[in-house]
């Protein structure tokens, strides 16, 4: 994103009070970032000084959403309240709450308790803030007052997923148990389509989907040795990528990407679609992949330092992302050749980067927020 009112590039590092599991947001010269310590920090883009901090009642792992002068965040944890896969899973054992916070002062404007974790990132669509939580309940609120306009249930439980606005009055989401990707009408929560995946596949609670004008893209893990509980910590797994038809929800292609040990948390790899190419890292292997969105054909694969669970951002033909090995990467988005790398020594987990002017902003698993000129990744 571009903002002529602030410098092109800055460099600073700020401690965000706990690991960072989401993408920062930017508005009016301020970076907003959530942390697993339950703190929303507003950081001056120019200087890196903290303007205010807002303390929530549980971890903040969703991306802050700026709507006018309100920042919307959602709290919750990753523990399960109900665990009976593949039938019924509810995530979030502690308090879970949606908050509207004054973007200028950090004061709470409204809050609303929810029954499942607030880890998923919501979306504003059709003038409503829409959020799906760890019970699979989707709630639409007035983003300024926090009053509920409708609620429905998509059956699937969500954790580190995010809803996506398609800009046509519908939104996309995904969840697990049952494993599903769905398209929902923003005005009333009516399901347009709901594509179900096999029970014993993992990562649907963690992996958001990406979409272009024709397709929906996502990924999941399959256990090499399935078990009745459909859960496989420290088991060998295979990563799949898939595409669905945006209009009908029908499966267009599904292909294997990588293989490795299934991690205990954050099994997904956040996809990005840009100019018909799908970019997806891997929670199983230190790899970044680029696929032809229409066919699923692998265009290139790049081995990196650590697993890539976070999303990426493309600026000027370069793809920027961080990996769990502590490396920031700049790859040629067409060919995957390395155009730059920078070892920061901080593991980058599921906190995807953003770029403001010529500055990359990214949070690390250990809680540092970094602002780095993108030209420094070389």
């Amino acid at each position, binding site marked *: 994103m571009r903002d002529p009112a602030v410098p092109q590039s800055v460099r600073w590092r700020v401690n965000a009070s706990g690991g960072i599991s989401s993408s920062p947001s930017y508005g009016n010269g301020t970076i907003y970032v959530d942390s697993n310590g339950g703190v929303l920090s507003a950081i001056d883009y120019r200087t890196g000084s903290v303007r205010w901090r807002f303390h929530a009642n549980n971890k903040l792992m969703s991306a802050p959403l700026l709507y006018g002068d309100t920042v919307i965040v959602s709290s919750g944890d990753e523990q399960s*309240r*109900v*665990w*009976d896969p593949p*039938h*019924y899973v*509810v995530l979030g*054992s502690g*308090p879970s709450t949606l908050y509207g916070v004054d973007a200028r002062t950090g004061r709470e404007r409204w809050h*609303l*308790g*929810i*029954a*499942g974790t607030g880890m998923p990132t919501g979306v504003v669509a059709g003038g409503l803030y829409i959020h799906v939580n760890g*019970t*699979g*309940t989707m*709630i639409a609120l007035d983003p300024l007052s*926090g*009053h*509920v*306009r*409708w*609620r*429905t*249930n998509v*059956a699937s439980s969500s954790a580190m997923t995010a809803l996506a606005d398609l800009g046509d009055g519908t939104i996309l989401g995904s969840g697990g148990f049952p494993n599903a990707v769905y398209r929902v009408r923003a005005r009333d929560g009516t399901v347009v389509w709901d594509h179900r995946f096999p029970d014993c596949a993992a990562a649907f609670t963690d992996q958001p989907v990406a979409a272009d004008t024709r397709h929906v893209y996502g990924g999941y893990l399959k256990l090499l040795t399935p078990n009745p509980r459909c859960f496989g910590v420290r088991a060998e797994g295979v990563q799949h990528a898939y595409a669905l038809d945006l209009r009908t929800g029908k499966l267009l292609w599904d292909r294997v990407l990588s293989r490795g040990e299934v991690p205990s948390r954050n099994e997904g790899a956040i996809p990005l679609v840009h100019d018909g190419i799908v970019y997806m890292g891997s929670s199983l292997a230190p790899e970044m992949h680029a696929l032809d969105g229409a066919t699923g054909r692998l265009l290139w694969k790049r081995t990196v330092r650590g697993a890539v669970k976070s999303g990426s951002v493309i600026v000027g033909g370069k793809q920027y992302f961080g990996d769990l090995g502590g490396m920031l990467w700049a790859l040629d988005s067409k060919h995957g050749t390395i155009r730059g790398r920078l070892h920061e020594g901080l593991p980058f987990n599921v906190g995807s980067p953003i770029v403001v002017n010529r500055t990359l902003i990214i949070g690390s698993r250990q809680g540092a927020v970094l602002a780095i000129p993108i030209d420094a990744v070389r």
Partner: protein
Amino acid sequence: MHYALLLAAFASLWTFRAGSAVVAAPAASGSNVVVADTQGDVFALVRATGKVRWSTIVGNGVWSAPIVFGNRVIVSTGDHEFVAVDPPMYAVAGAHPSGIVALDKRTGGITWEYDLAGSGAPAPALSGSTLIHHDGSSEVLALDAHDGAYRWRTFAASTAAWNAGVTVGSDRFATSGMFPNSVLILRVRDGVVIHRISFPPRALGFAQARIATDGKRIYGTYFLTEPLPVEHLYAVDVNSARVLWDHAVDQGANAAQLPQLTVRGGIVYAGSPFRNMMQAFRAANGTKIWEAALRGRSVGGAVIQNDTVYAADGGGMITMLDAQTGAVRGSYNAGSDMQDSTPAIIGDMLVVGSANGTVHSIPLAEIRP
């Protein structure tokens, strides 16, 4: 004669003190009485003496009657705390861990448990071997009562807090919920919602008031506030889902919770949230048949046997009324606040809990003029 003497010897007057309020109806379990309190202790008491045979902590409060199923005692645990209330569309009840817990009825050992997303304070219902529960997150969950295995779930889009589900015949389950205010009738086999009956958005009590059924109709109560609370009593036809009647019954200040209803022989019996009385209404049209004064309020529900209504009240009294006329036939001063407690008749004893945790076992013969 010999049988009567035996009964008289078996029936005994005893009290037992639980750790907190006992509002749920006690349940008979062989030679035991099972009672549960609002801090989550379940006790099996010897019917004849009130001595503790076993006790088990189930984690959160128990607000509904234990269900005895085969060699299991099943309770649902939860709390009344609302996580969110945003009328008229949204509410979540249950701030602390909730679940359904099955205990071995001989030992009290936990045989299976199933966690819930929202409050487990609402009462589950049993249809055959299917245990169905509507929770504070608006989920209706069906489990196999034998082993707690998952059967189905349905999102009710309506929140239960401490009300109750009931089975209607062998194939339907009915429940109520708030925001949106509704009564739902679901199919036991698969949880499909057959009927959803909507009530005014400004009404209160659909998550708290327990519905009752006689198999033909569902009966319930709610408040409208204008500005003092007005208590409504209604009946819904279970087949057509039509609201057959809906009457403003009473109005007042300082309301207690809405009364639990009891239906028997074409009559709906209800205490009053405003007054110290028991009332009887004709089930067919809701007209009042009688009302009878009590010493205190009685909203935990009455128990009926042999054309006699037994009501426990907040003034410490158990009153025996003629079911057809409301004439007082007898009373017993238990001395505990039983306003919210549901009595049960077990053998020839009336067993009822109270606000201070005292459980009374009173031979029916002791409730006399």
